[in-house]
């Protein structure tokens, strides 16, 4: 506030650009009074705090002179522009008329074009943006105010509508002014585009030229959109305003009744299993509705079949090796069993008696595997137990073996004489 106050005083010529300590003290007093600050402010501390960024004190002879920094001045300009949204009536049109159009001299070379871009286009662009933003907020504020016209307590609605109509006429003029200003865009853009070849000889210059051209083009597109949107809002509101007078009273009352009904519905409804339920006595209304049903035989399309391939099995080589070895061991046992059965049967056929416990020892010794004599034993019993010419006799006399901690019964097979 203090800095803005100082800036305003300088702008209006009340104090010099290089002012004195007394001017600063007086301005602090002004601000204290304006803001009605009752606590005693330490001017020196305040001055120290602000001096680091906002002003510079210089000693000239025996006097101290103070001036605002460039940063402080720019900040004040921005603040003033924002807090005083004063729409200059159509002044902008003339500003733009002078600044936006391109002259032949401006396109002589990259330096003159850059000069136009920096000193004419860029300031004008910021001014137009700020102007459209203010115009937009002005329009939105006025439209919000218009809603009050639909309330029944409005006094002299006809008079109010007339005053709003006047406001909107002014706003319409503002927009038209802006639209006219932007009319320069076609001329400006086509001049820039035509001059493009002139800058094409040097790549660096061409890039610089293209960058500026794009910025100008983007600006025109963006401002076009903003102004069209503002204009739409104004046109719609103005049209409605003109129609409002005839039906104002009815609209006001009807709107109030709808609001009441909505409140009544909300008040009398309840939440039940995730659904909204109105009061049971609230009148039900119906709408015509013939659902369209398409009865047709279900079409089964066999064209689509699952293309999923069976999942590949995980291959466990160690397990496979173990199973293979198991199988081989079993095969060896079977081979050995068959060999020993053949031998024993040959002995039997030769008329010899078989005392199995002796063969048992022999088999164990040669095969080094208990499974073989056991399988041979089973094989002999199976083969000869029901045989006509062989007799298997088992005596429950235990025969102990030293090896393998084994005990056998005596088993004898012999050929019976018929």
């Amino acid at each position: 506030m203090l800095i803005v106050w100082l800036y305003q005083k300088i702008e209006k010529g009340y104090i010099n650009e290089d002012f004195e300590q007394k001017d600063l003290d007086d301005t602090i007093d002004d601000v204290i009074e304006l803001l009605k600050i009752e606590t005693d402010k330490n001017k020196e501390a305040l001055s120290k705090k602000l001096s680091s960024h906002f002003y510079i004190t210089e000693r000239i002879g025996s006097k101290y002179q103070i001036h605002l920094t460039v940063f402080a001045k720019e900040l004040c300009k921005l603040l003033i522009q924002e807090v005083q949204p004063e729409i200059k009536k159509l002044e902008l049109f003339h500003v733009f008329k002078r600044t936006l159009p391109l002259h032949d001299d401006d396109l002589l070379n990259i330096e003159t074009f850059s000069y136009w871009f920096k000193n004419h286009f860029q300031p004008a662009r910021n001014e137009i943006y700020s102007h459209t933003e203010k115009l937009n907020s002005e329009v939105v504020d006025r439209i919000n105010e218009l809603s009050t016209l639909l309330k029944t307590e409005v006094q002299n609605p006809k008079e109010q509508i007339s005053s709003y109509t006047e406001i909107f006429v002014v706003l319409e003029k503002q927009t038209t002014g802006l639209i006219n200003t932007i009319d320069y865009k076609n001329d400006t853009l086509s001049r820039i585009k035509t001059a493009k070849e002139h800058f094409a000889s040097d790549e660096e210059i061409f890039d610089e030229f293209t960058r500026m051209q794009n910025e100008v083009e983007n600006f025109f597109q963006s401002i076009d959109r903003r102004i069209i949107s503002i204009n739409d809002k104004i046109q719609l509101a103005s049209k409605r305003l003109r129609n409002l007078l005839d039906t104002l009273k009815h609209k006001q009352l009807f709107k109030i009744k709808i609001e009441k009904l909505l409140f009544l519905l909300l008040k009398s409804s309840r939440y039940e299993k995730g659904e909204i339920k109105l009061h049971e006595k609230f009148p039900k209304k119906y709408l015509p509705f013939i659902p369209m049903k398409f009865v047709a035989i279900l079409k089964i399309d066999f064209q689509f079949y699952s293309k999923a391939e069976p999942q590949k099995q995980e291959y466990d080589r160690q397990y496979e090796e173990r199973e293979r070895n198991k199988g081989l061991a079993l095969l060896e046992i079977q081979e050995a069993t068959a060999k020993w059965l053949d031998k024993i049967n040959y002995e039997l056929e030769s008329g010899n008696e078989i005392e199995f416990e002796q063969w048992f020892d022999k088999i164990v010794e040669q095969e080094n595997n208990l499974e073989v004599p056991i399988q041979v034993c089973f094989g002999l019993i199976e083969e000869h137990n029901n045989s006509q010419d062989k007799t298997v006799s088992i005596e429950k006399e235990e025969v102990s073996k030293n090896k393998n901690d084994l005990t056998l019964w005596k088993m004898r097979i012999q050929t019976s004489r018929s």
Partner: protein
Amino acid sequence: MENANSNFPFLNTEQAKRYFADADIALKQGRHIQDYGNDIRIFSFVDEYFEMGLEEYYKQLFGMNLVRASNDNEKFYYLDFPDDGKGKLGKENRSKELEDEKVIFAILFLNFYKEKFFEQKEFLWQELEQTFKESEHKELWQAILYGKIKQNYTPKEELDVKDKVRKILADFEKLGWITFKNQEEVHFEILPSIERMSKLYDDVINNVEFIEEYLSNEQLS
């Protein structure tokens, strides 16, 4: 064949061949046809032949009123039951009740429409949320939408309510009362035909004081 449609000569026209079926199906499904979006062709057909036999066609053959109404100088058409019944659409499965939650939301949108008398009628989900959470009647809204009044709702609760509103809006779009700008984001525009709600509930709106008394007596008893 020349005499086939002699009672309703409009049915012999080239436009009828092109647009009658679509217009007829739309009307019988409760749609409000207006000069907007995909309806512009059937709107111009109905608008052209309304007085040239189309209105009479529905009256004679279906006992229904084809109504021409307008809101903000925008015309729209819809089928309505006659005063003394439901015409040929009185049979089962030829009409449907406007469900409770749709009544509340349709009245809300009608109110929105009237409120934005001077502005475009486009709305975003954020504006609806504002109504549910910051308006004068926020607690009543929360009670019927979420089933409980809390400071904050879980993301699931929020999502459920948004889905519910989106579903209601989708049904309103079929009726021609709104049009989605972006269905996923719940960005929509309320169309002039929302005025049908004020016609449908005309008796209730104009007697809202009596209805209030009637309902509060019911609540007491």
